[in-house]
């Protein structure tokens, strides 16, 4: 426990401000300010409420949107997949019955919960934010405590607006200096995961700090926080600053006028005190980070595009060697080979990691005046209807379409292969999403995680390649 006078981290402060009560063994009842719902992890929770005859305690702290399962093709057609349709209809029935605010499928505001929340100002700094989805960590970019929960917890929050939680440990990831050309927030995050490993953050909440993080726009910070879970941490956060306040100001659901001023005054206090204690610290030099991608089936299997995939012979122990062997065989790669020049079958630009307007602009800058190689299926799936609309206003859709990209409606799409957008067996994909697990994008699919510009470069060259070679004056 912290004495009020001892220096506290950003996480400690938000935590302390949301503790309703502390049980004997240290478990806290934590108040939840925002609860986002989607169609996949909520039906059983509503069913539980119904069975117990309980209402949603605070519909005004709750928001629902369908994203995982929605078709990203023509929205005027009926949803072909019976079960997907049932899930979406169930959500619509539940929000109706329990009075929960909801963006329908045909609303321009519909999109991936983790894009929509910040975009609408539903997610705000200083809040506790939960959703039945592990990438809820994304919202931490605003300077909030945001984390994924399971369906039982969804039901608990719906019924009580609180969660039973234990305080996590504090981890600081500091990235100092300036990133080079062709390097993005995604490359920074891949470098971090390459360093910590996928279990390195287990039990921690990560705070991202340092000049390279401060220099990122909100979209970049969201990319970082989004993949905290891939580093094992349940939440990631960035202290709110002027960039944050400017982003929040004027958003539809954000406070206005005096309430906004009151909020900013509070948000300004949300930074870690000098001398605050971190249980673990990681430091990265931004200048050393190169355009990166994953070679294997775990997000920690990271390498820079000019590197070589590992070989089982380099492994220090036999279990590790076995894992490399198994991974290379799944990925259809040879030990020690370069990834640059490896042909791809598909390119996916989208997901809650990289589907914001800034991401689409970065990709379009590479695609402009180029063509997708005919053997490649390339698609752009904007994170929300509003992102899509903005991109169209800027003519980005035209750049993508003219080059041969599919230009889709908003949703999760090929990120998890729940809707019809899937990889076929052994297809190789350059993807801006966050998970390269076996079968994630389709059974036997091979995923290489990378930034939007790297994915765009793969589409127009037909191979995994160094985006800097397509950027004027980058080398």
């Amino acid at each position: 426990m912290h004495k009020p006078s001892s220096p506290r981290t950003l996480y400690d402060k938000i935590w302390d401000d949301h503790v309703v009560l502390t049980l004997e063994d240290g478990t806290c009842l934590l108040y939840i300010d925002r609860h986002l719902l989607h169609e996949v992890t909520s039906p059983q929770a509503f069913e539980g409420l119904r069975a117990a005859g309980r209402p949603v305690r605070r519909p005004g702290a709750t928001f629902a949107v369908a994203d995982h399962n929605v078709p990203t093709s023509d929205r005027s057609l009926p949803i072909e997949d019976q079960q997907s349709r049932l899930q979406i209809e169930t959500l619509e029935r539940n929000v109706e019955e329990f009075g929960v605010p909801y963006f329908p499928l045909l609303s321009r505001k519909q999109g991936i919960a983790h894009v929509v929340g910040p975009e609408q100002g539903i997610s705000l700094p200083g809040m506790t934010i939960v959703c039945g989805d592990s990438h809820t960590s994304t919202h931490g970019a605003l300077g909030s405590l945001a984390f994924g929960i399971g369906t039982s917890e969804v039901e608990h929050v719906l019924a009580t607006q609180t969660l039973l939680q234990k305080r996590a440990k504090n981890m600081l990831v500091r990235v100092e200096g300036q990133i080079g050309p062709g390097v993005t927030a995604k490359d920074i995050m891949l470098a971090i995961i390459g360093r910590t490993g996928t279990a390195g953050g287990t039990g921690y909440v990560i705070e991202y700090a340092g000049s390279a993080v401060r220099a990122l726009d909100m979209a970049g910070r969201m990319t970082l926080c989004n993949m905290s879970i891939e580093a094992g941490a349940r939440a990631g956060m960035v202290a709110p600053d002027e960039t944050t306040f400017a982003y929040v100001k004027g958003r539809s659901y954000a406070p206005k006028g005096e309430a906004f001023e009151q909020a900013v005054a509070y948000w300004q206090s949300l930074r870690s005190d000098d001398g605050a204690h971190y249980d673990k610290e990681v430091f990265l030099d931004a200048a050393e980070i190169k355009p990166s991608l994953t070679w294997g089936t775990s997000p920690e299997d990271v390498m820079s595009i000019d590197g070589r995939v590992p070989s089982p012979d380099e492994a220090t122990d036999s279990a590790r060697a076995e894992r490399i062997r198994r991974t290379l065989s799944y990925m259809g790669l040879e030990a020690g080979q370069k990834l640059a020049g490896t042909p791809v079958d598909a390119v996916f630009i989208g997901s809650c990691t990289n589907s914001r307007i800034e991401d689409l602009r970065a990709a379009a800058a590479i695609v402009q005046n180029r063509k997708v190689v005919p053997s490649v299926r390339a698609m752009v799936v904007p994170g929300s209807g509003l992102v899509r609309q903005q991109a169209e206003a800027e003519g980005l859709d035209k750049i993508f379409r003219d080059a041969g990209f599919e230009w889709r409606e908003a949703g999760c799409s090929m990120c998890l292969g729940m809707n019809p957008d899937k990889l076929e067996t052994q297809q190789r994909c350059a993807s801006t999403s966050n998970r390269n697990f076996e079968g994630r994008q389709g059974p036997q699919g091979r995923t290489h995680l990378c930034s939007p510009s790297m994915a765009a470069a793969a589409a127009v060259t037909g191979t995994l390649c160094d985006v800097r070679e397509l950027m004027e004056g980058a080398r």
Partner: protein
Amino acid sequence: MEKFTRLTTVAAPLPQENIDTDQIIPARFLKTIQRTGLGKHLFADQRYDEQGNEKPDFVLNKPAYRKAGILITLDNLGCGSSREHAPWALQDFGIRCVIAPSIADIFHSNCFKNGLLPIRLPLEICETLMDDARQGENARLTVDLEKQQIVRPDGETIPFDVDPFWRHNLLEGLDNISQTLLREGEIEQFEQRANRAWIPSTQGENS
């Protein structure tokens, strides 16, 4: 929630690291609006071939382990997606306890909430238990939550740690929501705090 007190059963060894919840139950099986019936999809991609036939060498398909009640794995079990379908699928298959050197946070708490006991033990001990498990049918392990110990087939006991809060809940089969609702007064008081006045409602845009 179903109580967990003491369990004596066969344990299935699955010596893999980073078993993510996409492995435990692939996304294509999440289109359900129920909690039950997911056991047949447990580890679907490892358990069945492309035609949907069982792969005989996958551990849960071997005769000795078809009724396993414990699963033992290597590091970082349950990483990835927060889907509670993962513990539901394990539960529906018949698994009531998972043992690994490290277990991802969300999966860890999702297990407790479904009457499944997750146990973190050092790697050497997991490997010892895995060796026990490899002996198959006749090498049963006993997990005793009351005493916080595992009894090996040879009678040796191994103590384990478990969060006292969750231990109590599992032993009693308690429902968290009704417990929390008893604290309604404190929750209401919290909501009235002056420093929360700036927080808008999600019911309608602000202008």
